[in-house]
């Protein structure tokens, strides 16, 4: 390593706090970057990685806390200011303009020129020189969108790197790269490191963290879990740090679970998969059984649930619903066949915040009936009352807009809506995302109760304790492939963590 851990860190962030309306995104987080290191920043969805990075790079202002760059206090108010100070960023999903040429993308707000004019000859020279430093040789006059994502990524990095760059932030740079492209990117990262640049590497691929990272910082729910040298943390420890144990108070109800015998098969997938989305997998859901989907962010949890529902179409394998094989299931057919799906992001995909509790519950039944057959108001009120009582939705009456309820109660409305159509299979994606611990336990109890009532359930969750508490069987996913299944007594945190971390002797 060229640079010794210096007394003065390149970047020091201390007690950073940031609240967005309704969410405390960061709660007193510290981060220290040394010159010439690749620093991996890890955490599940909503852990606060992106917010921390946006604060570092000036895209978001912090509420409180302090920041130093090489010992000097800084407070960047825009990405431009941060850039000028030497902090460059490549945001997630290549944030460049695909419709513009490579030259123009590189020159945007960067090119030298007098009186607001741009000298394209100079801009082209600069673009070529910058790309050459990364060993990229492409036709810079072509629109950026016509190149592969890997090349676009390299252009974004080349653009971000100025002569004065001291910190480079790469937010999920490998998310859409293949193995070869990733290796190439890593050698560039090592080169930058050798130049003394502090590289922040955000990813959810653990192997990559160990391959290229020097130190690791883990965030969870807006808090710092810890920072350590990569060589000092084992994979299972790392997974543990990321997933945490918030659910200590939810006990695994073995006696109850053991009493239940799994019923007939409701849904079975055989070799179901889609290229670049999900490796082919087998999965069976039985009546009276809760199956969990475990895995880190990006492991394919949501995709698996959506594929079973038909929201993502498969290009391989087959799906058997209630004993009838279906090709190319679509959500409409799945609903008819009695499969209901509660999506992860209830705001964007699940609920209509402005409509009342009753109206939201009615949506799925009404769509099943067709729009012409109106459900009598009396029947609607009755059903809404039933659901509110059955799920314990805390609302003064059925006419309250859903947006005004708490997160836990909103989630119950999502469940109520799915249940109102009387499904026999219920697919839940992150049923406890963003709700408090009390409501959390209630939702899990509810899942068990539904299972007892004869539903087949699938629960995709990033919280291991939730899976341990609620499920009879757990399918474990890693890197968009199902890697195994455990059931009964085997379902423990440690077992799942070990499987996710890949300590089962399986070569990566």
């Amino acid at each position, binding site marked *: 390593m060229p640079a010794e851990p210096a007394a003065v860190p390149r970047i020091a962030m201390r007690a950073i706090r940031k609240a967005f309306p309704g969410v405390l995104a960061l709660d007193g987080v510290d981060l220290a970057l040394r010159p010439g290191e690749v620093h991996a920043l890890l955490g599940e969805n909503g852990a606060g990685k992106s917010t921390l990075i946006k604060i570092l790079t000036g895209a978001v202002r912090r509420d409180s806390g302090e920041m130093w760059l090489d010992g000097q206090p800084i407070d960047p108010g825009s990405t431009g200011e941060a850039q000028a100070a030497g902090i460059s960023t490549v945001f997630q999903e290549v944030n460049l*303009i695909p419709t513009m040429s490579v030259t123009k993308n590189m020159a945007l707000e960067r090119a030298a020129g007098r009186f607001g004019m741009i000298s394209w000859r100079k801009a082209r020279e600069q673009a070529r020189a910058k790309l050459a430093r990364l060993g990229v040789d492409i036709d810079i006059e072509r629109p950026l969108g016509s190149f592969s994502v890997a090349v676009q990524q390299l252009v974004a990095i080349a653009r971000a790197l100025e002569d004065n760059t001291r910190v480079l932030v790469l937010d999920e740079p490998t998310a859409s790269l293949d193995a070869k492209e990733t290796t190439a990117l890593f050698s560039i990262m090592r080169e930058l490191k050798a130049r003394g640049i502090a590289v922040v590497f955000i990813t959810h691929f653990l192997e990559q963290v160990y391959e290229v990272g020097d130190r690791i910082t883990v965030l969870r729910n807006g808090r710092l879990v810890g920072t350590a040298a990569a060589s000092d943390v084992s994979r299972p420890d790392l997974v543990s740090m990321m997933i945490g144990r918030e659910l200590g108070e939810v006990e695994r109800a073995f006696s109850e679970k053991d009493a239940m015998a799994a019923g007939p098969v409701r849904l079975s997938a055989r070799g179901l998969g889609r290229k670049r989305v999900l490796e082919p997998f087998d999965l069976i859901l039985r009546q009276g059984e809760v199956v969990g989907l475990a895995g880190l962010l990006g492991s394919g949890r949501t995709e698996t649930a959506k594929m079973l529902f038909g929201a993502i179409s498969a290009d391989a394998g087959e799906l058997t619903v209630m004993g009838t094989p279906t090709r190319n299931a679509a959500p409409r057919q799945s609903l008819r066949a009695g499969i209901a799906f509660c999506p992860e992001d209830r705001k964007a995909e699940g609920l209509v915040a402005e409509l009342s509790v009753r109206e939201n519950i009615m949506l799925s039944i009404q769509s099943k009936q067709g729009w012409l057959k109106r459900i009598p108001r009396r029947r609607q009120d009755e059903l809404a009352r039933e659901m509110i009582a059955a799920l314990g939705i805390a609302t003064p009456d059925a006419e309250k807009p859903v947006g005004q309820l708490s997160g836990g109660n909103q989630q119950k409305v999502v469940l109520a809506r799915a249940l109102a159509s009387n499904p026999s299979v219920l697919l839940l994606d992150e049923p406890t995302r963003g709700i408090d611990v009390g409501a959390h336990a209630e939702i899990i109890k509810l899942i068990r109760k539904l299972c007892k009532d004869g539903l087949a359930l699938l629960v995709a969750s990033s919280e291991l304790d939730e899976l341990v508490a609620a499920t009879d069987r757990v399918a474990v996913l890693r890197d968009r492939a199902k890697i195994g299944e455990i059931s009964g007594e085997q379902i423990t945190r440690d077992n799942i963590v070990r499987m996710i971390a890949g300590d089962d002797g399986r070569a990566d």
Partner: protein
Amino acid sequence: MINAKYLPLAATVTVFVALFLVGGMMYRNFLSTLVLGHILADNAFVIIAAIGATFVILSGGIDLSIGSMIGFVGVCMAVLDQAGWHPLASAALLLCFGILFGAMQGYLIDFCEIQPFIVTLAGLFLLRGACFMVSLDSVPIRHEFVQTFATTRIPLPGRGFLTSSAIVMLLSLAVAIFIAHFTRFGTNIYAIGGDKESARLMGVPIRRTTVMIYGLGGFYSALAGVIYALYTSSGYPLAGSTTELSAIAAVVLGGTLLTGGVGLVAGTVFGGMILGLISTLIIFHGSLNSAWIMISSGMLLFGFIVLHRFLVGSFDLRGSS
């Protein structure tokens, strides 16, 4: 291989040339600089307005206030003429007004995060109402400068000539091409239209640029109003109605995507000329009524949009999932 960027422009120019040749085969004397000069003169104000609209549309926005601006500038010039103002003085004043009005629209769009469609629709009503406040009738402009403007012309090879409105249009085009392709501001317009969020993260000042874009649009519509008033030597409160739609049509025919980010100012000029050529062809025919101008323009517009879908689809790699 030809850069994909120029494909839509090539298509536009091809259609223009083809239509011109069709005219030449149908009518004697059609293939002349005389006809070309007339098309330029008659459509100069629409094309000037369309050049301004090109910037707005390139940024992913829309400006519906163009036609009303043309009417408003016209009546104001006429009324100021009666008050003894020199047309050039009133033109200068009204061009400043156009910039300010457009900039205000741009500020509202960005600051209040309202769709450009609604803001400029309000601008449309506001300015058209203002036309009637200024004058209810057509007002002539009698200053001798109008005569000078009408008789100043540059002869072309053949019997044709460039009128002063055509000259102003070509100068506007030159300025627009310079802004679009040789300034930071122009590059920022393309960036905002390509992907506004990315542009913000790349450091483009969104508010300032948006205000400038609509200010520039306001300038070009006011200039179109000045040219229209001088060309017709009058101000009429209903002048320019629906010109904004012709301008948008010219922009689209010229190969600019309504979603923003892709297009060329030069294309717009050809787009406007195609519209002019169609009406000229139908007027030459004599027996066809003017309904056919609209119908054939509509069909052509439709064909172009479909064509663009394919051209863009061929180099857009984003929608992969």
